């Protein structure tokens, strides 16, 4: 991966979450009283430097999308704080927030649902330009053409409607729309998972090129661990609303320190039959517990293979582990991270792979 260049003089994180929480109420009964809450994001601290890409992985429902939305205030946090360029988003006036919005955008998973079918592609891309009064008339049209070209679409497509495009083309339209306001930070929420295999690479390359050309900062959410490694400088792993591991991708993929990270890696199928035959898998038993009622102590203990191997130590059930340093630029929330680090579960080393026949 190319080294990331940081704009001169802009030290410090661009985006920061500090003990961020998003709890959704569970209502019940005739009076719709609050019965409890879904702790979708339950105290996450994470900072992203300018020009950096942080990947976010974890099982479905662990809170990735909710965290991504809360970091740009598309979702109101119920606790903790989210900061952008040093400013606490909760303390901004509506006007200030609107101005900041321009600098933070989101790209959604679904290239079908996220574009208004009644608007032409040109209008879809022009809309945020209008909303933020960035350009009008000819200049606006010129900008739309430029954006379409930037994402690899022919500007003549501006007059057409979303249904006339393939999934990959629609995702490009979504990217053009997000870029229209010249954002600095983009939350990419599963940007390629709805696309065809042969198209995913095109969109991934596009996102990487744009990052380099425009100096963008990404929070890149995806369930595909190989894709996340490909784009991310650092990667975070979530489980039941908590960040359980975070660190430099290079480090986390080579030496995962949390048993959940190792289990996730172990579950990824590898497109090489020789590697597949040789691998030893740990398969997590059961399903993710309800985020309304997370297990006591370490939230992962009901499914943890290391807990079982260690003979079910008591502190896993009673003491919630803190996210603590376990190596250079790597933190994990596990009482026994050192034991996890030295296990061979889950890691696929390139050296394991038989050399591909060169034709």
């Amino acid at each position, binding site marked *: *991966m190319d080294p990331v260049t940081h704009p001169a003089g802009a030290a410090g994180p661009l985006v920061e979450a500090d003990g961020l929480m998003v709890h959704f109420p569970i209502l019940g009964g005739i009076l719709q009283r609050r019965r409890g809450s879904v702790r979708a994001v339950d105290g996450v601290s994470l900072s992203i430097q300018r020009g950096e890409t942080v990947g976010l992985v974890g*099982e*479905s429902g662990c809170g990735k999308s909710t965290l991504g939305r809360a970091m740009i205030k598309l979702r109101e946090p119920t606790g903790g704080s989210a900061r952008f360029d040093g400013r606490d988003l909760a303390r901004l006036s509506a006007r200030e927030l609107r101005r900041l919005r321009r600098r933070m955008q989101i790209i959604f998973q679904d290239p079908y649902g996220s574009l208004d079918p009644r608007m032409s592609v040109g209008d879809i891309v022009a809309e945020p330009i209008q909303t933020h009064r960035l350009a009008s008339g000819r200049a606006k049209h010129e900008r739309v053409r430029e954006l379409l070209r930037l994402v690899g679409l022919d500007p003549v497509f501006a007059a057409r409607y979303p249904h006339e495009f*393939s*999934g*990959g*083309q629609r995702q490009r339209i979504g990217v053009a729309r997000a870029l229209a306001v010249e954002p600095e930070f983009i939350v990419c929420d599963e940007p390629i998972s709805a696309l*065809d*295999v*042969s*198209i*995913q*690479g*095109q969109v*991934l*390359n596009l996102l*990487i090129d744009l990052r380099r050309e425009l100096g963008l900062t990404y929070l890149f959410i995806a*369930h595909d*661990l*190989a*894709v996340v*490694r*490909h784009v991310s400088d650092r990667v975070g792993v979530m489980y039941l609303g908590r960040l359980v591991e975070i660190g430099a991708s290079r480090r986390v*993929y080579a030496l995962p320190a949390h048993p959940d990270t190792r*289990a*996730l*890696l*172990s*579950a*990824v*199928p*590898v*497109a*090489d*039959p*020789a*590697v*597949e035959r040789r691998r030893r*898998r740990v*398969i*997590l*038993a*059961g*399903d993710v517990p309800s985020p309304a009622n997370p297990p006591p102590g370490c939230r992962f203990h009901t499914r943890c293979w290391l807990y079982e191997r260690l003979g079910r130590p008591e502190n896993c059930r009673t003491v919630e582990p803190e996210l603590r340093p376990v190596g250079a630029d790597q933190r994990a929330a596990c009482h026994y991270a050192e034991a996890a680090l030295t296990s061979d579960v889950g890691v*696929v*080393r*390139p050296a*394991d*792979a*038989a050399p*591909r*026949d060169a*034709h």
Partner: protein
Amino acid sequence: MSGDGGAPATAAEPRLPEAAHISTPEGRRLVAQIGDEADRHGRKLLEVRNLSTQFFTPDGVVHAVDEVDFDLDYGETLGLVGESGCGKSVTALSIARLVAEPPGRIVGGEVVFDGIDLLRLSSEEMRLLRGRRIGFVFQDPMSSLNPTMTVGRQISESAAAHLGLSRPAASTRAADLLSMVGIPRPADRLGDYPHQFSGGMRQRVMIAIALACDPMLLIADEPTTALDVTVQAQIMELLRSLSERLRTAVLLITHDLGIAAGMCQRVCVMYAGRIVERGLVDDIFGRPRMPYTRALLDSRPRLDVEPGGRLRTIEGFPPDLVDPRPACRFAPRCAHRRAVCDEAKPDLTPRPADGEGHAARCWGTEAGGWIP
């Protein structure tokens, strides 16, 4: 998923005599005989020959499945891989005669299942055979489970109908099946409805229903696409151990090459309605002889390959299957294209230097071709 694709108009006499409908004792005896090991004479469980299925739509004829040809051996797991819209599901539905007609129709070919050409059976015979011998697991369990019926009843009805079990026996069998697919406290969960199960659990229930009558062939159409990698690994492990234990053959449809690499003995790669390459997994992944297969392998980041640089991508988009080009359908996106590729249709021909059955549809890798 409703309606049987009827036999093509040209079908000659059915293999089962008209009179011997399966509802009769005679018919039942005939179906029971299918699967008799003594009677195999070296044939395969499933021989699909030049199968073609089309959809007749207002926009034109969709050539969804075009002369698809492959074998599946007893107890074997065969992968059918390819991108969205390439014809994987329609191939599977055609084999089970579940293509909705109209607009669809099987326009040619043979599907010989354990020695019987399925395309010549009456709809009723086919229905019986399907329930008894072929199990189906679909991508989205919610749309194929009945939301208003308990899970126990859905499994036991399938078992009772096809195995002729009494109610209590069918109920015991349902609990056994749930336990076999790894659902804890199975007897307690028979009275639950599908919405009370998680996505992975529902897929386990679907597998239990598909296995209820001990099929010889399990068709699994993207059984884990909607699930997490961790749950996907659970389901794949389950399918693997069940197919080994019960010696059930599996036709596994997936767009994930990693899953095919780990699960299958052999793989067929489809592109735009045609099989473009087939062979043993090690040949398909180690020595692909069709540029599309190679490009698919190269276009995704892999955990076993150090990341870096740009991904090699396949430019352009898969073609429209209404009036597809007669010659090589991949040509507009192929880096190795030459004039012949646009002039004549390449056949699926053997690549004899490689393992058993390795075949590719590409002029460039034919003997004397230009792709090294």
